[in-house]
């Protein structure tokens, strides 16, 4: 599974896929971690513009990335959540942990 991303100076924007389930979450985790380490990313953005579906596997992946960024004093945010994904975020209490910007 390949994802689109944009890496600038210290910042990385990853465009998440249409559906985030266990398969996609695993692939996102591997890709994000590799990019974070190789570009020394301080600010990570997941852009949800294309994402229509996410289950709890996505929650685990995001909490994991939030912790990883936290260890090095970096930050994480998510953008462009659909109403559905927003509902999943709220149920899991994720907005307390991760900045949510630019609602759909």
């Amino acid at each position, binding site marked *: 599974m390949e994802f689109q991303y944009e890496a600038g100076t210290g910042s990385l924007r990853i465009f998440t896929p249409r559906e985030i*389930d266990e398969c996609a979450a*695993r692939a996102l985790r591997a890709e994000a971690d590799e990019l974070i380490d190789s570009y020394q990313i301080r600010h990570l953005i997941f852009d949800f513009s294309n994402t229509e*579906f996410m*289950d709890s596997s996505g929650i*685990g992946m995001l909490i994991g990335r939030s912790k990883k960024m936290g260890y090095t004093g970096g930050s994480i945010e998510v953008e462009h959540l659909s109403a559905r994904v927003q509902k999943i975020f709220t149920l899991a209490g994720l907005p307390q942990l991760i900045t949510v910007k630019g609602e759909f």
Partner: protein
Amino acid sequence: MIREQAQEMSIRFDSYPENEQFARMTIMAFLVDLNPTVDELEDVKTAVSEAVTNAIIHGYEKEVGQVLLTCRKAGARVRITVTDHGKGIADIQKAREPFFTTRPDAERSGMGFAFMEAFMDEVHIESEQGQGTRIVMQKNLHLLQKV
């Protein structure tokens, strides 16, 4: 056309994570003629994704076994079962607690059962260690009037 008489479907598939999408799409296709709202369809889709993921990630973990998914629709009532013959759940009450997971290594959030309960009307868990797990979920759809 909504039939009052019950209709059932079942599929059995190998416990590869790639098959989660197949399971979700099959359920969607089976329920679409009930003309559910987008929200209701998404609720069922998420609950099925959680139950099937549990069977694959927790039930079978590293081995490959079979997952049985059944769905029964009768009027507006939908009943879904997800069965595996994997290792079973040691403590069902604990498994239901939000954020409890036995697989922090796999970055599991522990929200699987919480989501099933949030999105379905009823969720029953039957499990025996070494024998497997069966999840039974029910939901009443609020059918839209067909124009």
